[in-house]
């Protein structure tokens, strides 16, 4: 059986490795992972698998660039397609770094990284919107609760009537509820009145 040959029209360096050869099977998915150190395959790269047709490599399956404090070195450089000046700068980088000017060093940094740590860590004003949203929805909920209290709930039980409440308090005093520091401690039993 002919061993299928995989060829890709991507910018692969001689360093490319981990090309898993697909054994002849009509249902080949694009699961072959291309780990390219430093460069990533162009999103438009197409892989020809033997005689079976093309399989497009999706963007999300390729290494991505992101600025994160906890992983300081992303898998790929930020700028993929270098302009002419950037290419010449990269050539210059291969020589002595002392010969690079400050602007060139910064330009090299910006080729590899999108935002510096200071830029990526800076705060935003988003919290103001969040707090405003919190207040708004709490207020709205308050209105809803007020409406509920008026139109949904029925009457309270008779135990809330003032006469009933008075009898309750009298009974609590008779029972000497919390006589040391609490309820009955505040009642003057001699004069039948609350202590001044």
């Amino acid at each position, binding site marked *: 059986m002919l061993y299928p040959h995989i060829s890709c029209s991507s910018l692969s360096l001689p360093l490319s490795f981990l090309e898993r050869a697909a054994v002849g099977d009509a249902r080949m998915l694009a699961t072959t992972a291309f780990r390219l150190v430093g460069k990533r395959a162009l999103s438009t790269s197409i892989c020809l698998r033997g005689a079976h047709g093309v399989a497009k490599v999706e963007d999300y399956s390729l290494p991505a660039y992101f600025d994160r404090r906890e992983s300081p070195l992303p898998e790929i450089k930020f700028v993929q397609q270098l302009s002419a000046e950037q290419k010449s700068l990269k050539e210059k980088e291969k020589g002595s770094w002392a010969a690079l000017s400050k602007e060139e060093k910064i330009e090299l940094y910006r080729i590899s990284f999108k935002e510096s740590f200071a830029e990526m860590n800076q705060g935003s004003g988003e919290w103001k919107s969040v707090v405003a949203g919190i207040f708004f929805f709490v207020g709205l909920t308050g209105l809803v609760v007020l409406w509920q209290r008026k139109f949904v709930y029925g009457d309270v039980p008779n135990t809330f009537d003032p006469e009933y409440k008075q009898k309750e308090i009298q*009974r609590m005093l*008779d*029972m*000497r509820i919390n*006589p*040391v*520091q609490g309820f009955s401690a505040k009642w003057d*039993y001699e004069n039948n009145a609350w202590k001044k």
Partner: protein
Amino acid sequence: MSLAKPAMRGLLAKRLRFHLPIAFALSLCAAAAFKFAVSDPRKKAYADFYTQYDSTKEFNAMREAGIFESARPSGE
């Protein structure tokens, strides 16, 4: 463009040396404040209450108020 090398070791020890005494001091202050503001006054209040407490008198007062089921007021 030569910055000083930042501290690489002993970061936790340095932080603890600073924060632990403060933590201990604050905890002790909190405990002392609670003792003097809450526990001691409460103990004194209870002690004072029970030195002047006549349980028989209180029982009779409660009985006359009619709260007991098994000891009805003397009138009934």
